């Protein structure tokens, strides 16, 4: 099935192309954890991400190499028995000219919507461990995965990482409010460490297989404890540490069926939901004692 998808992706680039939403151009880097960098003159510009990408680049100097890609699933349904999911991302490099010299690399990322969060640190107060110090982070994705063809620090230059926010530390956005601690670095390190341990942040170097500098594919694992939202997959083509093309596609992660219904009820009709929870409890309590009384009599 996957081989078929791969062949399809190669044979029908337009079909694969249709699955994505177009090339990415990052928004202006907002004031974040990372100081802004000077932008070199020769940075290529990509079409606006909101616009569908035309097959022939409208710019006078078209990119020598472009990425076309597709996903095995453009949506993930969280059902009652949801136990994580694997997403296959495949694609190819489209060229008008012969393969240029040098190493070609591919980076694939999947990113969940961001949420604001607080990182707490415990210290010992009067013998017990208490949350005392905190750092507020304005936005951090609840899930973020990076898969690459090689070690990230060797295939991606820091400037380009800053520009596209590819590596894990770059994904965390601005701190919120006044920073109350002297050194916030251990806090963000802890955030990355905890989320990496529970599988919500992944860095899989070498997990993207690249064939003949043209075809690539990778599998990315989505964990069972997934939050719903509009996820985004990004694919970067790199040469000599510089991004030469980028591509993005949406993955819709949604609760479905009973999960959807209960969640909506709980947030839209909380009183009704609360009464329903009580009814379930009362009925179960009454039913069980009645049933067992009958059993004992029989």
């Amino acid at each position, binding site marked *: 099935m996957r081989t078929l998808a791969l062949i399809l992706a190669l044979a029908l680039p337009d079909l694969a192309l249709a699955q994505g939403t177009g090339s990415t151009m990052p928004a202006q880097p907002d004031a974040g954890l990372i100081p802004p960098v000077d932008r070199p003159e020769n940075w290529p510009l990509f079409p606006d991400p909101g616009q569908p990408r035309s097959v022939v680049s409208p710019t006078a100097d078209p990119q020598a190499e472009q990425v076309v890609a597709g996903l095995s699933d453009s949506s993930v349904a969280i059902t*009652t028995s949801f136990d994580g999911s694997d997403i296959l991302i495949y694609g190819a490099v489209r060229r008008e000219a012969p393969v240029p010299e040098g190493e070609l690399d591919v980076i694939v990322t999947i990113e969940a919507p961001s949420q604001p969060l607080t990182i707490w640190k415990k210290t010992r107060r009067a013998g017990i461990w208490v949350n005392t110090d905190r750092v507020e982070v304005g936005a951090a994705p609840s899930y973020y995965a990076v898969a690459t063809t090689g070690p990230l620090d060797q295939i991606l230059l820091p400037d380009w990482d800053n520009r596209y926010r590819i590596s894990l530390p770059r994904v965390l956005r601005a701190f919120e409010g006044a920073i109350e601690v002297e050194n916030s670095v251990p806090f963000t390190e802890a955030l990355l460490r905890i989320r990496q341990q529970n599988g919500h942040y992944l860095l899989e170097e070498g997990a993207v297989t690249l064939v003949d500098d043209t075809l690539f594919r990778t599998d990315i694992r989505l964990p069972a404890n997934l939050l719903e939202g509009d996820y985004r997959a990004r694919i970067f083509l790199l040469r000599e540490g510089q991004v030469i093309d980028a591509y993005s596609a949406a993955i819709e992660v949604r609760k479905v069926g009973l999960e959807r219904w209960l969640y909506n009820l709980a947030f839209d009709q909380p009183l009704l939901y609360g009464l329903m929870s009580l009814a379930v*409890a009362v009925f179960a309590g009454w039913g069980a004692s009645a049933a067992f009384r009958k059993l004992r009599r029989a």
Partner: protein
Amino acid sequence: MQIYLPIAEVSVNAFTLMGLGGLVGVMSGLFGVGGGFLITPLLFFIGIPPAIAVATGANQVVASSVSGVLAHMKRRTVDFRMGGVLLAGGLAGSGLGVLVFNLLQRIGKVELVVQLCYVVFLGLIGAMMLQESLRALRRARLPSARRRLHQHNWVHRLPLKVKFRASGLYISVIPPLLVGVAVGVLAAIMGVGGGFIMVPAMIYLLGMPTKVVVGTSLFQITFVTAFTTLMHAVSYNTVDVMLALLLILGGVVGAQIGTTLGARLRAEQLRILLALLVLAVCGKLALDLFLTPDELYSITTRSR
């Protein structure tokens, strides 16, 4: 079988949950306790967020106390007037407790306070029960004189006296109201019914006869936990009905097994076992507070 909980947004094994419910059900059948004080810490241990564990724990207690209070109503061992007074206090306390809970959540201390409450109360109750049952064991060997029904103390000098016929009492409504408030606050903060606090208070403080104590406390607990569940559901959307259902399913079956099992074991030994169990849970929670944790940092997400 993994199951994705819609509100907690975590995936857990359905059989683990039913097993937990069943285990606590056996305890409640065996020892005649609601089991809320065991289920909430156990939910912490398997990684359910504390806010959801507490709210859902309250919902689970509704189920187990409904089935208990029905049995007591049949035996006419519920003092409705006393239950009503306790309930009025309980509802006020529960509303207060939910507010306090939300405040604690905002300043990131909810886990600490809930754990501290558990350590203190489980420690006290466990020690009291152990002492009491050891004494009972000794008394069984050396029979001595009967105690008086109840003694007159400061409780009987307060104003606003009311007759509680089923309990055979003529006392002020203030102490039962205060007991109700205290239990309501605990129900909201700890996700427990509070029977383990209320029963000793009713016997020793109010001087109620033992035969109506359990039924009356169950009557009050049913309504206070139901109100707490609603408050948590409406204000903070933290009741997970799927989680509650699995716990209840295991719990009701476990409770019946426990009741049958309890009939075959000796009461004093059972009570020592329960006391040891309560102390064990208390000890585990206390160690978490006092020992250096493996991970000093923790993450809480704000708003959805």
